[in-house]
């Protein structure tokens, strides 16, 4: 008797299958991957001013778009599609196989990470060519960028899986999840300059990871002189790391303990 394949091995296979399935849904591929580009095009064309010397709104907005891309691609899409998979019995069928839950989660994380990389590449290309967005030249900024994307993607995936237990049906999932994400984006300074938001909004946003991801991304894409214009007068990257880690752990624990494979 051979041994059952390892959870990691099956997770990688799940990831490949998830990507294959995603790639075949052409409309959603185009929309998901280009959504941040479309938003950048709209906002970049409307707001032409600079918000600080040498900082265009587009530059500011790229940081917000990458951060909220992480939330849209991970949290929002998983919290909507997992209840749909559950509705049609796909999850229950998986539950009846020797594939462990962790492999399913790893597969989702791979799908989200890969679509994030493509989404960011498209956003960079578009921002560079059409909106004169500056890329960081400093290698420590790229290091910050890398851990932010990895941690943000993991956090967003884990919380999306955890939140998938909330919508009762696949049909209603979008109505539950989308408003939460949109409100969170407004509160977290994705669409507007964070410091111009009312204090109570800033305080609520500070509980959730999106505000910190966005702030972290600003530390990558804006000049360091801009840090003085943040609420805390600094980028607070250490705090961002800790808060994202806390949310990641919460998401993972919740997913493992409470994940629902079946409708009832």
């Amino acid at each position, binding site marked *: 008797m051979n041994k059952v394949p390892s959870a990691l091995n*099956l997770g990688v296979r799940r990831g490949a299958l998830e990507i294959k*399935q995603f790639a075949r849904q052409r409309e959603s591929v185009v929309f998901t991957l280009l959504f941040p580009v479309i938003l950048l095009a709209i906002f970049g064309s409307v707001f032409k001013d600079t918000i600080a010397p040498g900082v265009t709104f587009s530059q500011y907005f790229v940081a917000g778009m990458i951060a909220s891309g992480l939330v849209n691609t991970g949290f929002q899409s998983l919290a909507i599609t997992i209840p749909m998979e559950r509705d049609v*019995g796909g999850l*229950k069928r998986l*539950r009846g*196989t*020797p594939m462990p839950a962790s492999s399913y989660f790893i597969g989702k994380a791979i799908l989200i990470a890969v679509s994030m990389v493509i989404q960011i590449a498209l956003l960079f290309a578009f921002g560079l060519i059409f909106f004169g967005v500056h890329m960081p030249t400093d290698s420590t900024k790229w290091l910050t960028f890398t851990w932010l994307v990895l941690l943000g993607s993991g956090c967003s995936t884990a919380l999306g899986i955890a939140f998938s237990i909330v919508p009762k049906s696949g049909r209603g999932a979008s109505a539950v999840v989308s408003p939460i994400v949109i409100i969170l984006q407004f509160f977290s300074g994705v669409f507007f300059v964070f410091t111009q938001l009312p204090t109570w909004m800033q305080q609520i946003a500070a509980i959730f990871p999106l505000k910190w991801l966005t702030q972290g991304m600003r530390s990558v894409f804006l000049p360091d002189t801009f840090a003085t214009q943040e609420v805390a007068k600094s980028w607070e990257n250490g705090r961002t790391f800790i808060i994202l880690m806390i949310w990641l752990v919460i998401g993972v624990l919740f997913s493992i303990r409470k994940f629902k494979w079946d409708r009832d």
Partner: protein
Amino acid sequence: MNVIEVKGLKKSYGDVHAVQSLDLTIAQGEIFALLGPNGAGKTTTVEILEGFRKRDSGEVSVLGFDPQTSGHQAREWRNRIGIVLQSAADAGDLSVIETVQHFSGYYSNPRDVDEVITSVGLQEKAGALIRNLSGGQRRRLDVALGIIGSPELLFLDEPTTGFDPEARRAFWALIENLRGTGTTILLTTHYLDEAEALADRVAVINNGRIVEISTPEDLGGRATAKALVSWRDGDETKTQTTDNPTSLVSKLSTQFSGEIPELTVTRPSLEDIYLTMIGGTHE
């Protein structure tokens, strides 16, 4: 060796006693059908055996393992069973062969992918996307995914619901083929002809209890039940129940000196017996 052993199984949902003290033993290589109306406790029982639900009390052993256990042991156990659920309509963007191939990777000793696809009669649809399959073809794929891991025990939950008669016959032939491989099969159905065609033994379950366990031929004393002989005498249709229909027919034959008008000899069908057992009536 018994593949499934259940003693005193109980499960309630609030005030509803879905399963009340149920006993069941299924031997290796048997095809066993669980019959019962909706809400009888069939699904609850099977889902407990499949490890999808927790029982309130009683002893359950499936392949020598308590289905309620979790962790790595549970993976080893799931590696030995196959489950075909009532409906799964996911993964429409994958082809038949991609899906079967992928699922084969979950098991330690999977069967050959092409062979399994052929055995369920989908060889001509191997490259087709799942969303383009008919209902019957999808069901065949469900079975392919249930047997790809070469299970020792296969659960089939109402496998032919929604099939046309031809598709149902083809499906029965497929299950008959599995019998040859020594796979133990636990089938739930509410089609009595299906139980009769496939099962070695049937259990009728009602109100959370087993009413009777028997072969389809003997269920409810069917094999020894009195026969009903009916014929026409002049303008009148006459009927008589008897233990010896042959001698009655031969007597009538002499009386009519040849052909007996509108002669029928019937024994209760499995359906008649079943409906009596669950306290229902013909509609």
